[in-house]
């Protein structure tokens, strides 16, 4: 049999990202998009949030959420381009742009999260 594909790794990131994004991001959207601005819940102050974001566990959480979400996007967008635009023959460029974008985004996320004062 020819090439054993490296898809399992990419798919693992894709599915982990899908689970993380589907379960966690709605909570963030609810809290910071609805509940706090509309006054359903008492909004935490800037200092409280900053203290929370400084904690190593929060930093790790934010990093994983951003990175996995990006890899989920990369995989899905790659196949959207393959099948939606039917440009699978450009797969090398598409793969580089999609997964490269996710890696770049991961680096930026790591930089920003580490820079939290």
């Amino acid at each position, binding site marked *: *049999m*020819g*090439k*054993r*594909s490296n898809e*399992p790794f990419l798919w693992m990131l894709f599915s982990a990202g899908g689970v993380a994004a589907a379960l966690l991001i709605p909570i963030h959207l609810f809290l910071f998009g609805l509940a706090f601005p509309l006054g359903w819940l008492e909004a935490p102050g800037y200092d409280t949030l900053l203290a929370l974001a400084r904690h190593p566990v929060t930093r790790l959480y934010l990093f994983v959420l951003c990175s996995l979400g990006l890899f989920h996007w990369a995989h899905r967008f790659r196949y959207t381009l393959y*099948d939606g635009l039917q440009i*699978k023959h450009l797969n090398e460029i598409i793969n580089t742009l999609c997964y490269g974008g996710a890696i770049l985004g991961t680096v930026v996320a790591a930089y920003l999260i580490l820079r939290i004062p």
Partner: protein
Amino acid sequence: MAEAITLEVTRYHPERDEEPSLQSDEVPLRKEWVVLDALNYVKDKVDGTLSFRWSCRMGICGSCGMMVNGAPKLTCATFLSDYAPGPVRIAPLDNFPVIRDLVVDISDFLIKLSRAKPWLIRKREKPLSEGEYLQTADELDTYKQFSMCINCMLCYAACPVYGLDPLFSGPAAIALAQRYNLDSRDEGSNQRLDILSHSDGIWGCTFVGECTEVCPKNVDPAGAIQQYKLTATKEWMKSFLMPWGGGE
């Protein structure tokens, strides 16, 4: 019985015709008639040159799959009255080359099916004298759903990935491989791993799910493929962490 319905059937004779054409025929609209009955009416009473496949007319043989008003259907299990007042348009299954009229060339599917090794594989066949391979009801339940597949290929006609990429193994072949992988009597899952975890195997699937929607036997090929993605990922991790042969 005055009621009638118009049947618009795709006719195509590749050696003679430039492209497929539509033939309209009036057929009686009877409550108990399925689309296949209407096709047989045309063949018997109107135009004997019409070609189509059928055999059991009871949803078992899987040979009468066609596109009915654009959707893949077993014509023996699709009532004509559901399409009243008509017309009903009947075309050969999508995504397959046409041999003639409604008859498609299924050789690509047969090759893919046999590559998936859908049969019991044993490391050592025990002689008959040692008796049967026993199985509990629970063990049967794990794969029974997938064993309902009748190879009608409606899932291939529905699958947009197969339509775009003919190399893709396709829903039924993967579901049937999984049917034997999940069978407690089978020992051949590692022989199926390479073909299934190939980039033209399960990884081609983008989980559109149309295969499961159209399956006339309520098999869930999309589910089988997603399930196997997890299995293949675990095997991949094993071969990565234990390159000396941690796999079974």
